[in-house]
């Protein structure tokens, strides 16, 4: 096992990793920007190294500075957390060259999975179904051929588009050529860029991901699924496991597919296979995340497996002691991400002083946070304040517990605003309670709120 691990991250995940290390008797080194010199992770760690000024490019993203800190402190491994350098194959390679273990998959695997095209090709070959479409803009004839192959409905999207503009759904092949030219012309007139691409159109979908764990000896297991359908602009807000309202056997099939994909690419460590599940209960591979996920605690809550400690063991060259039979998820876990953002101002971050910081407690409630009363939320980084995770034997009781936990939460400051009330509204929403929501839920909620406001 490693003697010293450098944690190349900040915030709650840095603290989470340091705690795992402490339990295993591993010395920890926290690196930090000048902004974070008083952070919880810095106080907790055995040693701290200041690596640069607040902008991430000059600190948490500065590979050279982090490697130098590792060298000086004698760290034999680096845990990159999530974000920052966690999925940077160049960093992984540079660590390998320095003889330092980066806790994550090997650099070549990371490179293959980081490229959307090669990741899709590998997973398709491993038998994982893809959401069909063109990765690159195509000319009209090639696009039409592709649309015919994919099957209708397809959606034509402007490369420069967004927010619902510059896209058109096509339901029949004979409508395609005209729609394609029309979208190109519209895109040209709206954005000055006429490039468009084609994708299978899903009217509504759920985001379901599979947690995998692999060692360096070809052993791979999955730890069930997480449903992350409550999103706003691709930012996950609420995650839960198991995924509710899944047809019988689907999660198991997806788990088996993820394990097959992980084995095919030679994955090592903890990873996440992201899928979209359509209303016909078909699943489509999206991408692999080569890192520990923000939402990993829900999986920990139902499986009893400490994923970070498993990461460390595998990275240290140990064999997996868990087998697929050992993974017997129990009950339901839900996580809410409490962010320092103002939902009424388009979720604009609200950095600044936190005066009051009371987090929930009580049975089956876990809070992962780096914040404390008197903490100043810096403007340079993401706005995640705390993750609230609850467990209960069933979903209804888990929802009740999450509502209770959210109610116990009190965070305030002169200019502080949090997403607590918004999260409460979503968790209490009939659509969420009935688990009938899709990734469109948050937008629908906002649309519903806006209409009366406009009068």
């Amino acid at each position: 096992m490693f003697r010293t691990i450098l944690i190349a991250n900040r915030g709650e995940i840095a603290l989470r990793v340091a705690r795992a290390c402490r339990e295993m008797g591993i010395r920890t080194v926290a690196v930090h920007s000048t902004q974070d010199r008083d952070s919880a992770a810095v106080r907790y760690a055995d040693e701290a190294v200041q690596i640069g000024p607040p902008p991430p490019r000059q600190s948490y993203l500065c590979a050279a500075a982090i490697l130098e800190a590792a060298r000086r402190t004698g760290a034999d491994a680096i845990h990159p957390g999530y974000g920052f350098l966690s999925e940077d194959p160049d960093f992984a390679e540079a660590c390998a060259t320095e003889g330092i273990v980066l806790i994550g998959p090997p650099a070549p695997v990371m490179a293959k999975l980081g490229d959307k095209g090669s990741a899709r090709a590998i997973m398709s070959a491993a038998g994982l179904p893809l959401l069909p479409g063109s990765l690159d803009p195509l000319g009209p004839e090639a696009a039409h051929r592709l649309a015919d192959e994919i099957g209708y409905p397809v959606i034509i999207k402007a490369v420069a588009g967004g927010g619902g503009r510059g896209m058109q759904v096509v339901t029949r092949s004979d409508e395609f050529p005209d729609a394609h030219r029309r979208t190109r012309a519209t895109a040209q007139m709206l954005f000055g860029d006429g490039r468009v691409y084609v994708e299978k159109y899903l009217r509504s979908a759920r985001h379901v991901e599979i947690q995998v764990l692999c060692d360096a000896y070809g052993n791979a297991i999955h730890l069930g699924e997480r449903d992350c359908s409550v999103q706003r602009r691709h930012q996950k807000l609420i995650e839960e496991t198991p995924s509710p309202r899944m047809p019988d056997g689907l999660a198991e099939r997806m788990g088996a597919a993820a394990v097959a994909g992980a084995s095919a690419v030679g994955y090592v460590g903890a990873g996440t296979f992201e899928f979209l599940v359509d209303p016909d209960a078909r699943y489509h591979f999206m991408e692999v995340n080569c890192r520990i996920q923000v939402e990993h605690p829900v999986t920990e809550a139902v499986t009893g497996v400490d994923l970070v400690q498993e990461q460390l063991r595998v990275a240290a060259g140990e064999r997996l002691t868990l087998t697929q039979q050992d993974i017997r998820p129990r009950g339901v876990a839900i996580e809410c991400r409490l962010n320092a953002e103002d939902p009424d101002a388009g979720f604009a971050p609200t950095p600044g002083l936190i005066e009051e910081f009371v987090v929930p407690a009580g049975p089956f409630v876990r809070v992962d946070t780096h914040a404390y009363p008197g903490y100043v939320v810096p403007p340079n980084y993401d706005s995640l304040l705390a993750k609230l995770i609850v467990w209960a034997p069933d979903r209804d009781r888990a929802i009740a517990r999450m509502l209770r936990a959210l109610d116990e939460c009190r965070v305030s400051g002169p200019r502080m605003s949090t997403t607590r009330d918004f999260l409460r509204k979503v968790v209490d929403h009939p659509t969420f309670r009935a688990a009938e929501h899709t990734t469109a839920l948050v937008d629908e909620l906002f649309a519903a709120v806006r209409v009366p406001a406009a009068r």
Partner: protein
Amino acid sequence: MTQTVDRIVDEPGWVLCPGCTTPVYGKRWLRNLSVCPECGRYTALTAVERLTQLVDDGRYERLDLVARSEDPLQFVDTVPYPARLAEARARTGLDEAVLCARATVEGVPVVLAVMDFRFLGGSLGSAVGELITLAAEVALAGRTPLVIVSASGGARMQEGVLSLMQMAKTAAALAQLDEAGVLTVSLITDPTFGGVAASFATLCDVILAEPGARLGFAGRRVIEQTIRQQLPAEFQTAEFLLDRGVVDRIVPRSRLRAELGRLLRAGTGADGPSGDGRSSGDGRPEAGADVLVRDPGRLPEVDPWEQVRRARDLARPTTLDYLATAFVDFQELHGDRISGDCPSVVGGTAWLDGRPVLVIGQQKGHTAAELSQRNFGMPMPSGYRKAARLMRLAEKLRLPVVTLVDTPGAYPGADAEEQGQAVAIAENLRLMASLTVPVITMIIGEGGSGGALALAVANRVLAFTSAVYSVISPEGCAAILWKDPTAAPRAAAALRVGSRDLLRLGVVDGVVVEPDGGTGADPLTAADALRRALAGILDELRDLTGPQLRADRRARFRQYGSALTVESELRTMSQPRR
């Protein structure tokens, strides 16, 4: 001066960016083509690195050309010139400051001459001049496009006045390529100065530049220290020169090969752009016939004032809209190489039904912001000079010229007069009358007087049903003749500006019927009609030789005896327009 960065290619080393001093992982640095991924700073490439990046699969064949620097002056500064040469050769592994090769770029064969700044600052000595000239001669012999990548501080002082002569020698070599119709492309990299800037680097048909690359005759230091002028920070950068009409396009290093490939394909007619080159051959056999009306009797009588209003409708597709919809793979070329890049005129290469063409048109806009940015489609003299430059390029490369006319008129401001608006227009009329490639004009909206005609001396002139073409705006005419601007509708009727009258007068040869509600109501159908009409006319003109095309065009304009003569058209330039 340019800093070079030490790098380790084979093992993962680190590169310290000279711009932001961030240490960058060596492999990432190289993968990013020696452009800093953090701050975007471009650093110099060696000739070998440049060639490898530019050509297909990084494969090229060095040209076996013989030219070695001598020491004709027995020059000694701190060290003798031969010692300097020997040191440069040892350090760079090159014989001279330019490397010549043959390769393909996106499948098109080219001859390349690539300079290396590390070799005595890329200075233009006799051997460099000789190698550039020899490369041009190889290009000429094979009628292969020539690509020159420049990086130079200027003439090589150690060779004295003989080095100066290389400017003339290389210019003469490029003149021969012009006469032979062989495409030449220059890529300006940082820095390109002095004798190289004032010869082959700026004499090519198209001048591309890397972002931030500096080009100039006299360097900043010379200007600041000799005549004590204050210079802006961006002085002589590619961006500065693009605004001033010196370079055609600024192309990021990562897109150079692709952009060069598009240019070479259009310039050589090598192959249609990939994907959708011949997307619309469907209407080809009877192309044009069904969309083009040649009998004025088949056109509806429309109130002339209503027609003027329709022609000016902001919803109508603009030249750039048609370039995106009726044409394929438009590659805009900027600048008149004299004074500026007029935003009211756009032009460049494109493909029409699988054929490369050179398209030029006035550009208006749909919104107030666009209109203001495009100066309401009223070109400056630099706009007409850009058009002229592109037409000469079309003549050289034997590309048909398609012009799209949509202007209230040439810009009537004082600055336009100071820069010779009348001369710019007149010279275009004469140039267009002399071209030996097919020229087709389509009036897509407003054809405002001399400012329109300066792009409309064509073998065939077409117009949309709601287009207008006039010697003066109805408002201007009303103000002069009725002394009352509100008489514009009467003036419009009297001037007979509508497409039906234009067809009857023989000023246009065919009218393209617009979709219901006008071109703005259904841009795609309009674009389709435009494409078919133009393709049909191109077919019509296909069998004419160069001299026949010129004679045809001159005869077409010779016939206008009583209605509108070119002279009367020009005379109106002195009258206020609105």
